[in-house]
């Protein structure tokens, strides 16, 4: 009996993970279904676009700028050990576009957007606003979830593209400003080195991470427990889940794009 106890715990854990995966998948399918079928709530969608996209620009821009700059410094000092300082533009470009741009933007969106969606929807749930929506013949999946997820799917790839460009620009500033790189040569090296695959992977990751971030916010919000504590738990859980899933999805997508 005592020997089997750990197995029981493991079994229960696996079952719980499977059940949660099933619930989240069903929720995601339902969200997509509601995105495709009318009625569509244009105003909600517009507000979501504004919140997820436009208002995220400052934090995305600053994150990318500093990271691109730091990346240039690291590659320069690391490369100097085997006389490879010259690769700074290429590695900054690849590092930003393939990995850091999408991942950092995804994590920033998880911090900014997932948390605010989860807290807002969870508050609506505990104050019976979700019930009120239903009694007013409005499906919360359509009115709250679909516009937010759709907005994130559309706008986060754009944010990633902007983050990539700003990150490269950060590297360029550091490299040309204090590491003695020639400006025109730096840009030429960057542009010539990047392939279409790099850029496509970046945008696909942006789309996936945006979808994960918004879905987790909505899922945890809609399943919030009661009271202020419920809202707090939902918000915390949503950001944790979004961050971990974004990093896992990044690993998978990197495998799909670059190991074949």
């Amino acid at each position, binding site marked *: 009996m005592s020997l089997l106890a750990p197995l029981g715990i493991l079994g229960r854990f696996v079952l719980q993970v499977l059940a949660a995966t099933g619930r989240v998948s069903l929720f995601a399918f339902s969200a997509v279904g509601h995105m495709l079928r009318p009625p569509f709530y244009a105003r909600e969608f517009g507000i979501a676009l504004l919140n997820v996209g436009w208002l995220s620009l400052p934090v995305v821009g600053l994150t990318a700028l500093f990271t691109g700059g730091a990346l240039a410094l690291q590659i320069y000092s690391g490369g100097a050990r085997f006389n490879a300082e010259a690769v700074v533009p290429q590695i900054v470009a690849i590092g930003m576009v393939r990995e850091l741009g999408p991942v950092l933007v995804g994590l920033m969106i998880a911090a900014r957007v997932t948390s605010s969606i989860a807290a*807002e929807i969870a508050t609506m749930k505990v104050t*019976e606003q979700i*019930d009120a929506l239903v*009694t*007013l*013949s409005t499906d919360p999946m359509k009115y709250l979830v679909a516009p937010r997820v759709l907005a994130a799917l559309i706008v986060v790839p754009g944010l990633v593209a902007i983050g990539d460009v700003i990150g490269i620009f950060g590297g360029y500033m550091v490299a040309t400003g204090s590491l003695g790189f020639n400006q025109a040569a730096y840009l030429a090296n960057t542009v010539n080195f990047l392939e279409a695959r790099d850029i496509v992977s970046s945008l696909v990751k942006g789309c996936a991470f945006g979808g994960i971030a918004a879905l987790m916010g909505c899922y945890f919000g809609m399943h919030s427990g009661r009271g202020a504590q419920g809202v707090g738990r939902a918000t915390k859980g949503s950001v944790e889940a979004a961050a971990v899933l974004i990093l896992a999805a990044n690993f998978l997508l990197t495998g799909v794009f670059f190991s074949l």
Partner: protein
Amino acid sequence: MITLDKVCKRFDDNAVLRGVDLTIAKGSSMVIIGGSGTGKSVMLKCILGLVTPDSGTITVDGEDVTRAERDALLARFGMLFQGGALFDSLPVWQNVAFRLLRGALARPRDEARAIAIEKLRRVGLKPDVADRFPAELSGGMQKRVGLARAIAAEPEIIFFDEPTTGLDPIMAGVINDLIREIVSEMGATALTITHDMSSVRAIADHVAMLHDGVIQWTGPVSGMDQSGDPYVTQFISGSAVGPIEAVR
């Protein structure tokens, strides 16, 4: 007509409803009384399908609510939630006109706004609150906005969950009259939850008392004072002595 037949609902180990039987006639005003936490709000939510009963059946005009077409059914209902449940991202008038701005009952924005302002007037709110946000209003004002929203689309069946709680006595009187008016003039069916005995006398055709998960007593409001039911008598008199334990 709304009927509940042996409706049971429990949350984990808390058996809230334990076989509720109740009939509400079309065009009448039923008031539910009972101590707080006895499951009155849960009962309303069961009828609306917001909470699924564990067992028992609920029908509206003979149609089982769990099998009915949800949208068509809900379009006939208006509901005032106990906490107001206003959408805090929308200004007051858009809360009131929510149904009139989208979906099957949609109409032009100006018209919807005019109706919203008229309904706000009926619950004693001035037109200048229309453009404020719910969070800027006092609790009693929020309650009245919720009431205006419940009646905005002129539903056939209206549920009021504690409509006068948190209002001053004069405003409570206004709301009581309004509910009475909606029933007698518009022919609506009303189901009201309240603790306020003056409200009960002003609104009710029939009264039902929920206690220990069942309807302890139901009858016409005129029979309430001579009900002979110890629970009802204690509740009306507000006495601490009686079958209802005052210290729980």
